């Protein structure tokens, strides 16, 4: 049994005015194990601390109980006193007899005194189980991984790289650029999307600190903050990046065709292709599922024509391993599957398209070279309907707002009026949500365009007509009855969900996900929107929830600054209250693994048995594992199960 020193603070009259300190001291002295009991008018004053240090030193006690005030304000001070007296600071127990006793029981002095005695007695019982603890410093590898090469990933990578750290930017497609590269213009300023994105893409390609890994996927991640080790699969391009000069002769001569994913299936590309003219890197990739050589064993036209001999059909996928200190996830969004919204007829009628398809149709490097036509019919539309909230704010599909559809619909109306000045555009919307910088102004500008009609009322159905046109039905509350508008083209402003690849990244990183849409869960929606439950992994852009470009860029820079501040400090400090496993008792039932939100617990082999093991760099000391361990094998030091039991028994005695 340890020898305990008990210090009682009067706190002027704050404590002593209610609690009879002398009586408390008498009671406490009777307890076995208590070596000294000493009181002080203000324990936190210089005098108080000095006499405390002296008493600890001279009496040779090995545990200290202080009955005073809140641990929040005063624990560091008293811990420091213990340190100076040569004791480990975690052998201190601070009993808050001020906030929890004297201040709240001012009129019941007798009972408050009794309560204080019990509280101190419980602390003495508890502290017998305390052990000395240490904080540890762990190194941080000065490099970062950014997953996703859209605008969020590009911005984050550039910011981290500019601060002088190595960045690995992983993109699953052959080129970076993401969804922003698909856009023709951006709202509300209507500046050309690729014109502002292109320079950033080139900056990424040329940055000395950025290692660009396109056409690559993250396979596995191990380790912890400061020391992640990542395996990345580089899919074979069948074109050697070191030899290709980007002349693109190979593409011109390729005879095989495939659906163009970048143009949302509205046109065809070759089997050897770059996604779009501004692609970075400007190195083609061969799609083996359509290439004649891979399918039929003949052709090799590209190989024959390539002036640098860069085509290499024998390429294999290659796994590279990188080590980084922090990770940014920016895997972005994609449109909700529009064909699931059966009533809007997407997939059933060729003249029903999505917003992103319209972007490609009006883009100068899109399938029609910027001419707006009805797909597959190749006729210029005269009457166009834009259906807002397609799938969004709909319990059957996505209950949330996509946050960009309203402004996109206005932008799309503007595109149409710009390209076909006498066209009539009907926007079907419950309301237009224009709550951003310059948004309301843009709304007014588009609304005043002649031939743009905003119908207040959600479209209920899109119906085909025998003549090939489609009718949009809606209930117009202003008219009080249903309306039906005959149009040549319907644009669905489809809701957005986290990109498909997010799911696999999420499983690899063990990140949380929100209930709807597959977006990744932030640590706290208000105070920690960039951090995740896993230390050292940050999220930004649309993968964290629907958002527009400026918000995405701001978040990306925020994520980068979090990474930079972690990497530039160079080390992380563990907190001392990390869960510890008694592997004798641990049954390896994995319930703690499920309960731990920080991914800090893993099952390891030890002595021929599977037992839990805590990574102290990841453990936050919350005790969720302690609370759910049926084997009582895991404990937070100085908050042991027996210690708490001893407190219960002591108070009730």
């Amino acid at each position, binding site marked *: 049994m340890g020898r305990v020193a008990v210090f009682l603070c009067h706190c002027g009259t704050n404590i002593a005015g209610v609690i009879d300190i002398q009586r408390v001291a008498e009671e406490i002295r009777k307890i076995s194990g208590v070596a000294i009991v000493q009181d002080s008018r203000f324990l936190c004053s210089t005098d108080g601390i000095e006499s405390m240090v002296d008493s600890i030193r001279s009496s040779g006690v090995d545990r200290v109980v202080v009955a005073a005030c809140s641990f929040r304000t005063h624990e560091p001070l008293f811990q420091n006193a213990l340190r100076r007296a040569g004791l480990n600071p975690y052998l201190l127990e601070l009993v808050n007899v001020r906030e929890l006793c004297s201040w709240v029981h001012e009129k019941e002095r007798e009972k408050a005194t009794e309560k204080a005695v019990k509280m101190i007695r419980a602390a003495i019982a508890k502290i017998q189980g305390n052990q000395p603890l240490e904080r540890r410093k762990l190194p941080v590898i000065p490099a970062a991984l950014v997953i996703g090469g859209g605008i969020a990933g590009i911005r984050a990578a550039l910011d981290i790289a500019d601060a002088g750290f190595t960045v690995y930017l992983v993109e699953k497609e052959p080129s970076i650029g993401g969804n922003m590269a698909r856009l023709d213009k951006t709202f509300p300023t209507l500046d050309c999307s690729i014109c502002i994105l292109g320079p950033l893409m080139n900056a990424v390609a040329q940055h000395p600190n950025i290692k660009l890994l396109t056409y690559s996927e993250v396979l596995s991640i191990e380790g912890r903050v400061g020391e992640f080790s990542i395996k990345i699969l580089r899919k074979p391009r069948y074109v050697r990046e070191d030899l290709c000069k980007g002349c693109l002769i190979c593409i011109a001569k390729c005879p095989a065709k495939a659906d163009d994913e970048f143009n949302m299936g509205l046109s065809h590309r070759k089997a050897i292709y770059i996604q779009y003219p501004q692609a970075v890197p400007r190195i083609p990739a061969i799609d083996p599922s359509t290439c004649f050589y891979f399918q039929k064993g003949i052709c090799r036209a590209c190989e024959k024509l390539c002036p640098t001999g860069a085509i290499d059909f024998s390429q294999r996928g290659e796994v590279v391993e990188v080590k980084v200190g922090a990770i940014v996830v920016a895997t972005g969004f994609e449109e909700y599957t529009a064909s699931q919204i059966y009533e809007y007829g997407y997939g059933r009628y060729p003249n029903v398209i999505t917003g992103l398809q319209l972007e490609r149709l009006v883009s100068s490097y899109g399938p029609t070279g910027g001419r707006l036509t009805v797909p597959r019919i190749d006729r210029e539309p005269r009457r166009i309907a834009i259906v807002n909230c397609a799938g969004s704010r709909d319990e059957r599909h996505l209950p949330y707002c996509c946050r960009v559809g309203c402004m996109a619909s206005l932008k799309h109306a503007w595109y149409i009026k710009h390209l076909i000045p006498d066209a009539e555009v009907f926007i079907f919307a419950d309301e237009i949500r224009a709550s951003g910088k310059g948004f309301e102004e843009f709304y007014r500008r588009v609304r005043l365009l002649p031939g743009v009609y905003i119908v207040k009322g959600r479209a209920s159905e899109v119906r085909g007509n025998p003549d090939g046109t489609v009718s949009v039905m809606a209930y117009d509350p202003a008219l009080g009855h249903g309306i039906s508008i005959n149009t040549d083209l319907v644009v669905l402003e489809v809701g957005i969900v986290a990109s498909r690849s997010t799911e696999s990244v999420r499983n690899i990183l063990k990140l949380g996900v929100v209930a709807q849409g597959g977006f990744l869960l932030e640590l706290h929606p208000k105070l920690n929107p960039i951090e995740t439950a896993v230390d050292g992994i940050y999220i930004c852009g649309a993968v964290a929830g629907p958002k527009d470009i400026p918000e995405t860029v701001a978040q990306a820079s925020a994520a980068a600054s979090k990474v930079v501040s972690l990497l530039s400090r160079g080390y992380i400090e563990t907190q001392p209250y990390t869960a510890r496993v008694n592997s*004798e*008792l*641990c*049954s*390896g*039932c*994995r*319930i*703690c*693994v*499920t*309960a731990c939100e920080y991914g800090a617990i893993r*099952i390891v082999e030890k002595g021929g*048995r*599977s037992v839990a093991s805590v990574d102290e760099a990841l453990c936050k000391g919350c005790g*969720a*594992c302690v*609370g*759910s*361990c*049926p*084997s*009582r*094998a895991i404990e937070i030091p100085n908050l042991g199960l027996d210690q708490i039991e001893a407190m219960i028994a002591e108070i009730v005695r």
Partner: protein
Amino acid sequence: MVISIGIVSLAYCAGCEVALASMERFCNLIADGVVRIAYSTLLVDSEKLENVDVLFVTGSIRTGEDIIAVKEASRKASKIVAFGSCTCFGGIPGLGNMIRREEIVGGVFGSVQPSESGLLPKLAKFVIPLQSVVDVNYMVPGCPPPEPVIEALLESLVHGREFTLPSVSICNECPLNRDDKKPVKEPRRRLLALNDVDVDTCFLKQGVLCMGPATLAGCRALCPSRGAPCIGCMGPLPNSRDQAADMIDALSGVFYMIEPLERILEAVLDPVGLLSMFTLPYSTIPYHRRVGVEEVKRDAN
């Protein structure tokens, strides 16, 4: 030297004796003359318990006569084995602690008061584990004790090796405990789920209550490895004090994403019966309030 064994049976189903007698190793020991059953109302024809080397006690302490019998028998033995979960923890008869003894008798015999005739023993106030009456040398839990555990006990009795129970739970030896669990979204009632569970996947992972995490190992996961969730017959881990509390904690670590909470309660409709099926008299609160709790009125004046 022949080791003589006496078996005293209390409130019991005879399963423990059957488990013992059906073990090949035990029969061989008898055939080889190493062990002799000196007394057992079920297994041998002997009228009186003489002095024996080892006394096996099976069944729960349910009646006053049980208490007297076990106390007397203990004087005639040098070692005492609490054999089976009924003896160690109260067992299934221990769930009788949910009802007062008068009500139990009334429920069975109606208005007839059989004990008044003196022919039937009177019930004890509530079921208690054996170690509350006599000092126990060996705790052998299980309903009935599984073969590996009996084997170890016999080894200890015959060869003097130390008899130790595992310190870990069923999960440690369960073949289904392979991959990390994820928070369960859909709890299911054990009986209703049995037709469509994947018998090759952890039951808890499928939302089915399995007592494995809070139950002592030793049976080599007999039930879970054969497609049935553990019901907890081996009792709590040695380090634990309460099987039900441990299981509630374990469930909360796996079920915490389930909404609404009623769905969990529907899946665990009879919490005492499911979580303390074998161990109620051994638990922290070992009985229903009206059985073992006296009320002291506070008078405000």
